C-alpha cells in the first residue's frame, strides 16, 4: 500500500522527517519498506506492507490513527456536509442474497457536469500509484484510499430498467469487466445486475458497459458491505484481484459504508456540478453489535514482564479508537471500534499496548528453567549420527525435492499402488510425494554428470511417503547411498572404479556403528536394481538393499555409467535391538598368524568357507579375515583364489607353534575336502 505523506498530514500533524515516520510505523508493526520522494507532485510516498489482520491500515485515515496513537496527537476526520436530497430520485434495489450482501446502498446524482479532478486530489492519487481519469472515477478511488471503503460509480443511463438487483450469477452467465476481459461466471459468484445483465462482479470489479465516461450525465454511486468469503472466492475463481476485492476480503468497517458514500457525494458536489442528489436507496442493515473486552491489569505484566501504568494503557487504547468504559484497580472494560475486527480478546489488547508502548522497551530476560524429561531414542539423533559418519567416510550429502514424477516412477517399474499424489502440484512434472529415494538420487546424479562430475559418492537422509489405509500416509525414514565412477584417490594409489563392495563396506560399517551386526546378505530382486543385488537382513528383518541400478532406470535418466545404490530403511533400523559397546579385556598372550590361500570354484561363497574355518578353529581361533581375492591370469577361468588370515590366541597361555600347526592342518583338511579347494 502506497501512502502519501501530504495526505496523512491533512489528518494529523507530523513534525518528524519522513524517514523517522517510516521507522516509527515499522516499529509499530506497519512495515514501511521504502520512503521516497515523488518529485513531480512534491510529495513523499511510504510503501507499507500491511498484514492481513489490519485492513484498517489500508487507508490513510487508518494510518493517521496509528500515528495518533504513537504521537499522542489527535486526528482530524473530514466532516460530512448535510444536504437536501430529492426523495423522488432513486432506483429500486432488490437484494436476493442477504447472506452474501448484508447491506447495499446507492445514491443517484443527476445532471452531473465534471472534468478532471482538482490538482491536490490528482497529485495524491499519483503518489499512491493511480492514474487520474476523471472526477467521478478519481473520487471513488480517493475515498477508497482515504477510509478503506470501496465504492463503485455506474453510468445510470446505461443501467437497463434503472434498477439494481443483487443476486447470484446464472449458470455460464457472461460478464465483461472494465479491464475489457470477459468472465464466465459461476453460480456462486455474487453479481450486481441491472434489469438485464450483470453490471458488476460484487466487490471485485465493475462492468465495462455501465462504466462512467466523459459523456456520462447521471451517476449511481454504490457503497455496500459484501461478505468477505464471497468476494474472496470470486476473486480467486476468476484470478481477478482489485483494490476493492482486497479490502472486502479483509472486512471493511461497517460504520464506513455510509460515510464513504456521503463523502464521495460531497467531493463530487464540491469539485463538479451536480443538478440533483437523490435519496439513498438501500437494502439490508449492518449489525451495530459492539465488542467489549475485559482486560485484567495484572495480565499485562504477566505477559509483557513490564509494569505499564493504567493511565498509559488507557491513553494508548483511546488513541487507537477504543473506548475505555470503566476502570477498576484490577481491570478495564474496553469497547473496540468497528474497524478493528482483529481485537476480540484481552490478549489482542495486550499486543496493542505492547506495540504502542514499544517492543524495544520491554526488557530481555532468560527464563528460569524447570527440568523436563527428554526422550532419548530420538530418530533425529540417528540421522545426525549417520550424516556425520557418512561425511567422514567421503560421501557428499544431497538434499533433493521430496517430490516425484508419477509417469517417471511408473516407467522405472516401481510399485505405484500406494502413491501420495498431489492435487495442485506447482510443476506438472513433480506431481506426487516420492515413494522411493531412487529417482531423486538418479536426478541428482544425472544433473552432476551433465556438469561433467562423473565420480560421485552421495547420500541422502530423507523420507518416502506411502498411502496408508488408516488416515495419514506413512512417512518412512530412509538413507539412500550411491556410488559411481572412479574412487577418489591421491596420486600414489592406482585409480579404480567404485564397485559393489565399496558400498557394501560402507553400509556394513554404518550399521555396525548403529550397533547392528550379524548381517545376512540375500541375493534378491530389488526395485530399480539388478545383480549384483542383495537384500540386507538383520535379526530376521529386511533393513535395506544394495545393488546396481538396472537398465530400465538407467534409461529413464539417460545414464550409461554403472551406479551402485543402497537403500536403508531407517525406521526398521530404529526399532531393532542395538548392541551396546562393551569392553573386552586386552589379551595378555601374543597371537600367532597363519594365512591360507585357496583355489575354489567360483560358485562357492567365501562366507561359507569363513564360517567353516571358524567352526573348525574353535576357541583358539581369534579371528579370520578374507584379505585377498584373485581371478584371471594364471587361474582356471571357473576358479577363484581367496586368501584368509587367521589369528590364533589363547587367553590362558602363549600358544606353541606345534599346537597352532596342528589346528591349521585340521582347518586345511576340512576346507580342502568340503569345498574341493586346492591350497595354493
Amino acid at each position, binding site marked *: 500500500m502506497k501512502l502519501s505523506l501530504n495526505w496523512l498530514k491533512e489528518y494529523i500533524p507530523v513534525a518528524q522527517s519522513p524517514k523517522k515516520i517510516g521507522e516509527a510505523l515499522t516499529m509499530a*508493526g506497519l512495515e514501511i519498506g521504502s520512503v521516497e520522494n515523488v518529485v513531480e507532485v512534491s510529495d513523499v510516498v511510504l510503501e507499507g506492507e500491511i*498484514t*492481513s489482520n489490519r485492513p484498517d491500515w489500508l487507508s490513510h485515515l487508518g494510518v493517521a490513527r496509528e500515528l495518533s496513537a504513537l504521537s499522542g496527537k489527535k486526528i482530524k476526520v473530514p466532516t460530512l456536509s448535510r444536504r437536501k436530497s430529492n426523495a423522488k430520485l432513486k432506483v429500486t434495489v432488490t437484494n436476493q442474497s442477504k447472506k452474501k450482501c448484508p447491506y447495499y446502498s446507492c445514491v443517484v446524482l443527476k445532471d452531473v457536469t465534471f472534468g478532471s479532478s482538482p490538482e491536490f486530489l490528482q497529485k495524491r492519487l499519483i503518489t499512491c500509484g493511480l492514474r487520474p481519469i476523471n472526477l467521478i472515477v478519481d473520487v471513488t478511488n480517493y475515498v477508497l484510499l482515504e477510509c478503506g471503503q470501496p465504492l463503485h460509480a455506474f453510468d445510470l443511463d446505461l443501467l437497463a430498467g434503472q434498477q439494481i438487483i443483487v443476486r447470484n450469477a446464472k449458470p455460464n452467465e457472461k460478464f465483461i469487466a472494465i479491464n475489457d476481459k470477459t468472465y464466465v461466471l459461476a453460480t456462486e459468484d455474487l453479481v450486481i445486475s441491472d434489469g438485464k445483465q450483470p453490471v458488476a462482479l460484487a466487490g471485485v470489479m465493475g462492468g465495462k458497459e455501465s462504466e462512467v465516461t466523459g459523456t456520462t450525465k447521471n451517476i449511481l454511486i454504490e457503497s455496500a458491505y459484501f461478505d468477505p468469503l464471497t468476494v*474472496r472466492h470470486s476473486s480467486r475463481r476468476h484470478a481477478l484481484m482489485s483494490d476493492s476485492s482486497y479490502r472486502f*476480503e479483509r472486512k471493511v468497517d461497517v460504520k464506513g459504508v455510509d460515510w464513504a458514500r456521503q463523502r464521495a457525494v460531497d467531493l463530487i458536489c464540491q469539485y463538479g456540478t451536480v443538478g440533483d442528489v437523490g435519496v439513498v436507496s438501500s437494502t439490508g442493515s449492518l449489525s451495530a453489535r459492539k465488542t467489549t473486552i475485559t482486560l485484567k491489569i495484572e495480565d499485562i505484566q*504477566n*505477559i*509483557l*514482564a513490564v509494569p505499564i501504568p493504567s493511565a498509559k494503557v488507557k491513553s494508548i487504547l483511546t488513541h487507537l479508537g477504543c473506548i475505555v468504559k470503566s476502570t477498576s484497580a484490577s481491570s478495564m472494560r474496553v469497547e473496540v471500534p468497528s474497524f478493528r475486527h482483529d481485537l476480540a480478546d484481552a*490478549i*489482542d489488547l*495486550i*499486543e496493542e499496548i*505492547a*506495540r504502542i508502548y514499544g*517492543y524495544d522497551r520491554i*526488557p*530481555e*530476560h*532468560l*527464563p528460569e*528453567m*524447570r527440568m*523436563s524429561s*527428554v526422550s532419548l531414542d530420538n530418530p*533425529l539423533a540417528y540421522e*545426525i549420527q549417520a*550424516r*556425520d559418519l557418512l*561425511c*567422514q*567416510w*567421503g560421501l*557428499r*550429502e*544431497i*538434499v*533433493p*525435492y521430496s517430490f516425484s514424477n508419477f509417469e517417471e516412477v511408473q516407467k522405472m517399474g516401481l510399485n505405484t499402488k500406494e502413491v*501420495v*499424489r*498431489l*492435487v*495442485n*502440484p*506447482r510443476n506438472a512434472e513433480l506431481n506426487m*510425494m516420492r515413494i522411493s529415494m531412487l529417482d531423486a538420487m538418479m536426478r*541428482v546424479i544425472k*544433473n552432476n554428470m551433465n*556438469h561433467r*562430475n562423473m565420480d*560421485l559418492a*552421495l547420500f541422502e*537422509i530423507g523420507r518416502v511417503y506411502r498411502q496408508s489405509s488408516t488416515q*495419514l*500416509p506413512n*512417512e518412512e525414514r530412509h538413507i539412500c547411498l550411491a556410488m559411481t565412477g572412479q574412487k577418489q*584417490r*591421491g596420486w*600414489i594409489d592406482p585409480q579404480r572404479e567404485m564397485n559393489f563392495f565399496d558400498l557394501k563396506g560402507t553400509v556394513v560399517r554404518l550399521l555396525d556403528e548403529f550397533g547392528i551386526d550379524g548381517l545376512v546378505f540375500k541375493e534378491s530382486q530389488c526395485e530399480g536394481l539388478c545383480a549384483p543385488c542383495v537384500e540386507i537382513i538383520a535379526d530376521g528383518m529386511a533393513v535395506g538393499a544394495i545393488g546396481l541400478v538396472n537398465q530400465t532406470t538407467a534409461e529413464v535418466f539417460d545414464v550409461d555409467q554403472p551406479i551402485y545404490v543402497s537403500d536403508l530403511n531407517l525406521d526398521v533400523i530404529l526399532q531393532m535391538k542395538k548392541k551396546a559397546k562393551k569392553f573386552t579385556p586386552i589379551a595378555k598372550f601374543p597371537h600367532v598368524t597363519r594365512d591360507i590361500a585357496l583355489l575354489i570354484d567360483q560358485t562357492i561363497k567365501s562366507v561359507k568357507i569363513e564360517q567353516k574355518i571358524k567352526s573348525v578353529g574353535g576357541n583358539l581361533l581369534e579371528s579370520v579375515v578374507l584379505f585377498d581375492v584373485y581371478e584371471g591370469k594364471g587361474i582356471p577361468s571357473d576358479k577363484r583364489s581367496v586368501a584368509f588370515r587367521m589369528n590364533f590366541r589363547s587367553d590362558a597361555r602363549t600358544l606353541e607353534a606345534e599346537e597352532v600347526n596342528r589346528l591349521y592342518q585340521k582347518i586345511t583338511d576340512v576346507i580342502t575336502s568340503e569345498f574341493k579347494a586346492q591350497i595354493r
Partner: protein
Amino acid sequence: MDTIQQLEQEFSQKLSDLTPETAEMLRIEYLGRKGKITQLLHRIGELPPEERKGYGQSVNALKQKVEAALTEHSSQSGDTRSQKSNIDITLPGVEPEQGSCHPITQTIEEFIRVFQRMGFEIVDGREVETEKYNFTALNIPIDHPARDAFDTFYTEKGHLLRSQTSTVQVRVMENRKPPLRIIAPGRVYRPDEIDASHSSMFHQVEGFMVDEKITFADLKGVLRLFLTEIFGKEVKIRFRPHFFPFTEPSVEVDMMWVRKQITSGGTVQKSQWLEILGAGQIHPNVFKAAGYPKGKYRGFAFGLGVERMAMLRLGINDIRYFYENNLDFLSQF
C-alpha cells in the same frame, strides 16, 4: 660361539667400510632382537653364578661401544632410515577422503546444538498433515486471508503438505504437559513460483517453550542469546511487531546486515535491516486446541527459515542451488 673379544674385532672391521645402507643391517646384526650381542646377554644364565656379574658388565660395555659407534656414524652420514634424497616434497600430500554435509543440514545442526545447550529437546514432525495441525489448531481459520501467506499443497486424500513446522506445536502439546522446550526442524512445502528466492520445498526450524510463567521478556532473551551464538556478540537486532495468527503478541526479528559493495568510488559498506525470524507469545487459542486448561500456561514460539539463514551466512544468491546438489556446490561447504 663368539667370545666378547672376537665380536668386538669383527665389528670394528665391518665399521670401517660402513655405508648408510649397511648401517641399519649392522645395527640389526648386533643389537636386534636376535642380534649377536643380544644373544651374548641371553647366555648369561648358562654361566656359573660367580662369573655372571663380570660377564654381564663386559657384554654391556661392548653393547654401549657398538651403539656409540653406530650413532656417531649415522650423525656423520645422515639418518640411516632416510630415503632417497631426491624426493620432490612439493608433490601434493595424499589427503584422507572427506565428504560433506549439505549446507542446509549443516545449518540445521548448528541451530540444534545452540538450542540443545539451552535445554531444548529435538522433536521430529510429520510432513503430510491434516488441516487441523497446519491451520485450525494454530488459530488460522479456513478460508481466511491469513492463509494466503501459507499457500498449501493438497493430496488426493484431502491431506496437505505442511506449510510450516508450527504443526509440531499442537502435536507435541496434545501429548505432553509443560514444562516444554522443543526444537523441531524439517521440510515444509508451499506452491510458490520457483525463483532465486522461492522454492516449493524448503526447511524451517520451529522452536517453542511453554511453562507457567514465560513472558515476552523471555522470548526476547532467548532469541537474542540464540542470535548472539550464531552471529557473534556484535550482532545488532530489533524486535518488530508483526502478525501471525498463532502468536500474540507477534514479533519479527530483524538483524542489521552489513554488506560491502564495490562501486566506482571504491568499497562502500551498506547496512540494512533484514528479517530473519518470526516469533511471538503462543496464542491462547493454540493452548485451547491442545487441550490445556485456560490461562494456566504461557509460552513463546518462533520459526526460522533455514535456507534464508544459510544463504545470508554463506553468501549464496540463488535458493535453487540447494536442491540441484551439484558437486561443485556441495564441495564448497
